[in-house]
């Protein structure tokens, strides 16, 4: 019988706040993090809206108590701050005898620094300190060193589903008996590189994004980091940590359709959700809420919408995308939205799909447009679908519910 996987720690920094409590407060007060670009010098500043963590890199260094230290990308700093919170909540410092894994998702890596110094890298030796922080592993190892972890670690990059895949791989390593506990999630800082890249794909909305709206016009990018501490049931008996909720199901499937588009009927999305649901042992009508990937692009919302309708054909749960709050946090979205889903479940609250007014004619359902409180939520699903069709879905269940 594979072990049960419990969530015992959460860590979160985003445009909504620097820790879980601040993020929760913003959600409850309907404060979106979407606004103008402040931290990055880009000619697109005047045109685009993003959700930024409200601190410069110097501020982040200070906040993290790392002022004066060299070689930290924004990615690493965000990751360290969030991972520390998750680590601390699960009191892992008192349990260093455990086999603790670190699995982190990112795509930009150290690009926020390297894009500034690329010409120097090519022509002179003035920025050699930054050369090696370019790759994806750097932020993971910086987090590991900060937390004093030297067990199993790896880094996953599957675009927008990176953090979700980190969580599910951590769970699998634990069920296989290779780890007792893990910090899993993702970190992604905004960079000129990917702001321009998404802009070249013409899928960025110059207005606040409107997922599942008939007039939707694309994405607002976001940044931040989010990590979950996971424990097996056996480990939890040792740590005695309060169980926040249980990870009861996960699924990974591939759209295999086109490099940047999903199929019209959302095959990959359907398969990922179905795998997660099947593993959880829950029936579709037991799922109370879906935190949709819901990016606000024509393609995703239609594709995901159809997949939801196909899987939940008898009864569609409450559905909302919280990307109008946090922006699209790309490689960190999977864990950020898992945390948002969990917070909703624990608070009996359905987060609204902000900026929604016109239902999509192609879909039978609409997302939840207003904050709903006092709702009994026992099973929630969080979707993350990446470029290239890397589709993942996570299912969490309230602890103590049968």
């Amino acid at each position, binding site marked *: 019988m594979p072990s049960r996987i419990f969530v015992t720690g959460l860590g979160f920094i985003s445009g909504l706040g620097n820790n879980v409590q601040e993020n929760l407060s913003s959600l409850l007060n309907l404060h979106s993090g979407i606004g103008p670009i402040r931290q990055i010098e880009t000619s697109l500043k005047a045109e685009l809206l993003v959700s930024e963590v409200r601190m410069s890199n110097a501020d982040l260094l200070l906040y993290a108590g790392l002022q004066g230290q060299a070689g930290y990308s924004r990615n690493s700093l965000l990751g360290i701050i969030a991972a520390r919170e998750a680590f601390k909540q699960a009191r892992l410092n008192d349990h260093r005898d455990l086999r603790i894994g670190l699995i982190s998702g990112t795509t930009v890596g150290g690009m926020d620094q390297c894009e500034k110094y690329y010409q120097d*890298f090519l022509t002179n030796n003035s920025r050699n300190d930054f050369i090696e922080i370019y790759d994806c*592993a750097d932020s*993971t190892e910086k987090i590991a060193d900060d937390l004093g972890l030297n067990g199993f670690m790896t880094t996953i*990059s*599957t675009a927008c589903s990176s953090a979700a895949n980190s969580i599910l791989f951590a769970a699998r390593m634990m069920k296989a008996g290779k780890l007792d506990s893990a910090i899993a999630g993702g970190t992604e800082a905004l960079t000129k590189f990917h702001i321009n890249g998404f802009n070249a794909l013409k899928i960025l909305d110059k207005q606040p994004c409107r997922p599942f709206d008939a007039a939707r016009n694309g994405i607002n990018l976001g940044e931040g980091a989010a990590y979950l501490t996971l424990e097996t049931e056996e480990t939890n008996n040792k740590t005695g940590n309060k169980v926040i909720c249980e990870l009861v199901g996960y699924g990974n499937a*591939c759209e*295999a359709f086109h490099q940047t588009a999903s199929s019209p009927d959302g095959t990959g999305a359907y398969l990922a959700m179905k795998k997660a649901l099947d593993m959880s042992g829950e029936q579709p009508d037991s799922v109370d809420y879906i935190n949709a990937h819901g990016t606000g692009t024509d393609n995703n919302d239609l594709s995901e919408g159809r997949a939801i309708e196909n899987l939940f054909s008898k009864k569609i749960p409450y559905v909302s995308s919280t990307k109008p709050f946090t922006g699209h946090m790309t490689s960190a979205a999977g864990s950020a939205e898992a945390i948002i889903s969990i917070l909703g479940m624990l608070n009996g609250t359905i987060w609204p799909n902000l900026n929604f007014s016109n239902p999509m004619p192609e879909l039978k359902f609409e997302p939840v447009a207003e904050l709903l409180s006092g709702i009994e939520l026992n099973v929630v699903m969080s979707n993350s679908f990446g470029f*290239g069709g890397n589709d993942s879905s996570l299912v969490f269940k309230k602890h103590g519910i049968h």
Partner: protein
Amino acid sequence: MAYINGIGIISPQNTLPGSGFLEAAVEHNTDFLRSVEPVYKSYIDPIAARRLSRLIKMGISSAKMCMQDAGLGMPDAIITGTGLGSVEDTEKILGELTKEEKFLNPTPFIQSTYNTISSQIAIHLKCHQYNSTYVHRCFSLESCLLDGLLQISDNPAANILAGGIDEMTQNHLTIIRRLGLWKPEAIRNFDLWTNNLPGALAGEGSAYFIISGVKTDTSYARLEAVETLYKPGSTAETASFVNEFLSGNGLSSGDVDVVLMGNNGHTGHDRICNEVISRAIPGTTRVLYKHLCGEYHTVSGFALFLASNMIRREFIPPSLVTLPSIPKKIETVLIHNHFRDTDHAFILVRK
């Protein structure tokens, strides 16, 4: 444990299908060892190839070669490891952004995301199954293999397509040379072990494997186990780890017939490799191979190709450097690689 049932590899040696096993070694006198590439048209429709970078073409082609080698039409999972992803496309974008932010082409951005290789393979094979990409230096391919082994222990009949790929470009070489990590100028690859210039020899390659719980006619060897080690305190600690790794798999150091060494020409790096192995497995046969393929994060793919063939054919090609001499048997091979003595990776392959 899983069987290695298929291999597809593009490397700086003649490793394309039908080449035999390192029959005629390829000499390079260049800044970095560049792959001997196939005619991509044989693997990828030319119109589809229009948007594919060299790295992605290498990945798709070696994945297809692997599927053909294993006699399979569809894998049950596709997992790719890459340390640096598409360096060429990343550089294109950085180059454009350095000039001005207008007129950025979408294609290099799509190519530059690390998961593009694994997802393009899925598109070409029309595979909706599990798909993931690991991007952690010399743990990248090892993470794929671990992931695959976990899947096989749940489902022994599964055929997992797992591979490692990295490319080298002139710009990237120039940049890393500033850190004194690569040879400062071109050398003849066969002279790597006698050359006194500091730094490693840079290389690249793409190697995909089908691993499965089921033995078949095409099985090369058994992928017994994979382990990684982060920031050991000393070579003694690393050596201890190796011994625990072996004993955890029912082996003592005397059971290891061959170690495929992580040596790459960089003095400090090679000293660590030598010390770890002489402490952990004294008296074993050591084989040096990076003069043939160069150094890159997923070089253990080339090593796994070597180990699989050495075991199946019971033969060590003369182009490899075998110290002190050819062993009596080749049934148990250990692959060791490390990055800056920070990330150590081990793969155990058996008959």
